[in-house]
């Protein structure tokens, strides 16, 4: 609640400073007023209300409609009483009303309590009263109203911004504590469940038969669970992504991921398209080499480009087959990968020496 508290304090300071100003004015000019006693009474009322309002607004629960409306009514009343105190010809000429700049405090209060709409509304009410008092709109009389409107709008706008900023900070804090909790869970799971699962996978594979099948299932669950509890770094910027994080979900008992230890930062568009291309390449591996084929995904961060290579241990593609298929216009998945890469200014090279290899390359 940093900025809001500071603003409430500032309004209090303003309220008393402007009260002091009105008092000085009163001392200097009371002898020319039509009813000086009424002027002093209004000044007393302003002082009393300043104290009451300060105490009221200091309580968060009291910053509600009743107090706000009372503030506005008291202020308008003090302002309108000027008609019976200050000589009309002086008012028409644009000279000061009784409360002077003190009327702006209610505009500021309304703006702080509820943003620019409330600020502008309060300014309009005070402005209307002021214009009635001065008997019409002239260059001299409109000035104060315009300034009030401006103050109400600007302060209200700033408060809106501050509230947004505070809300975002709050969300960031929540996210951080959620991440910390996730890390704690991940540690716990790592120490127990993952270890046991990998042990089952290892032992099962050694025993063979049905146990091997159980081991394989345990290995898959281990990878899935590890991916689930692996803590992702919160997104740093809106339009960039770590390619390693985008591709991590593909890791499984059959797919091994190799990447640098440091983030591979690309735009989120590139991350999305490359992820989709990797998904269809891996899907292709399943379709053509069977569910038990192994595949490797290598992410490389070169100075001028980012490359991702998907390789499987299947039979590969005989030389010339690819050109043949392309000539006949049936390349299917390969075609879609090449198209995707071309759309983001990259390339896809498909070769088939030791298993099929798809190399995606996007220049920086």
């Amino acid at each position, binding site marked *: 609640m940093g900025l809001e508290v500071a603003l409430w304090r500032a309004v209090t300071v303003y309220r008393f400073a402007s009260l002091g100003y009105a008092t000085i004015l009163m001392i200097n000019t009371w002898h020319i007023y039509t009813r000086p006693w009424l002027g002093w009474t209004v000044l007393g009322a302003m002082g009393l209300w300043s104290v009451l309002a300060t105490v009221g607004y200091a309580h968060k629960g009291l910053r509600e409609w009743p107090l706000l409306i009372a503030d506005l009514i008291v202020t308008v009343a003090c302002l309108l009483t000027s008609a019976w105190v200050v000589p009309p010809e002086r008012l028409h000429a644009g000279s000061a009303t009784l409360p002077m700049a003190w009327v702006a405090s209610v505009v500021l209060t309304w703006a702080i309590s509820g943003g620019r709409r409330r600020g502008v509304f309060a300014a309009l009410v005070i402005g209307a009263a002021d214009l009635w008092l001065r008997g019409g709109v002239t260059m001299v009389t409109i000035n104060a109203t315009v300034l009030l409107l401006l103050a109400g709008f600007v302060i209200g706008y700033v408060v809106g911004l501050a509230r947004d900023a505070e809300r975002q900070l709050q969300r960031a804090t929540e996210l951080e504590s959620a991440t910390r909790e996730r890390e704690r869970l991940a*540690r716990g799971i*790592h120490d127990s469940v993952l*270890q046991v699962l990998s042990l089952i996978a290892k032992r099962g*594979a050694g025993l063979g038969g049905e146990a091997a099948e159980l081991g394989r299932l345990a290995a898959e669950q281990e990878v899935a669970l590890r991916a689930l509890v692996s803590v992702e770094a919160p997104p740093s910027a809106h339009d960039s992504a770590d390619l390693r994080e985008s591709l991590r979900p593909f890791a499984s008992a059959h797919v091994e991921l*190799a*990447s640098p230890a*440091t983030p591979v930062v690309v735009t989120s568009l590139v991350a999305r398209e490359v992820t989709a291309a990797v998904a269809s390449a891996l899907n292709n591996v399943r379709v053509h080499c069977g569910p038990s084929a192994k595949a490797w995904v290598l992410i*490389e961060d070169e100075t001028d480009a980012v490359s991702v290579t998907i390789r499987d241990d299947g039979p590969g593609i005989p030389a010339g087959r690819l050109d043949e298929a392309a000539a006949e216009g049936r390349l299917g998945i390969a075609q879609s990968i090449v198209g995707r890469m071309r759309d983001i200014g990259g390339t896809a090279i498909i070769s088939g020496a030791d298993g099929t290899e798809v190399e995606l390359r996007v220049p920086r």
Partner: protein
Amino acid sequence: MTRVLVVDDHPMWRDGVARDLTEAGYQVIAAVGEAKQAVRVGASLKPDVALVDLQLPDGSGVDVIHGLLAAHPTMRILVLSASAEQQNVLEAVKAGALGYLVKSAGREEFMEAVRRTTEGDAVFTAGLAGLVLGEYRRLAATPASGPAAPQLTERETEVLRLVAKGMSYKQIAERLVLSHRTVQNHVQNTLGKLQLHNRVELVRYAIEQGLDGSES
């Protein structure tokens, strides 16, 4: 008989590994679950090979590797981890581990890795090759303030990329028309240069911080 130290905080896993090793003819001289204890035991018993988990309750496996090699520089260390923390794996091999294997690796793959570690050969998975490749690129891209960053030869880069794509040394040897041993040497060199650079950096850092004893 090869004497092995097993460092892992999970008792079930520790026992399983120890049993596998004993059956395969290794002598498991100790199996411990904490980092400090591991360094102490390792320094006094001086095993030939240590299998180290990266996540330990009272410290990181990287510290254990530093401690073990400080006490016994010729010890051969294999990192076994379920951890997906790639930075830790990289730090471990830079600290001097000969290789890295995921805990979910099959029994045969595991025994092969231990055998190769015992012989002093690097144990590279595709994942580790990707990390090492990335580290060389990172070193090349960041302007070095100290000693010149190590660089890979063209052939080493080529070999490392093929390892990172999951190819076996045999397949790589066939594709590049090299002997199996040459491929193994190239892989070993990539790791050796990185470890040397890391040691030089550590010494330089120690001197800068006045930790070498030359200042009071």
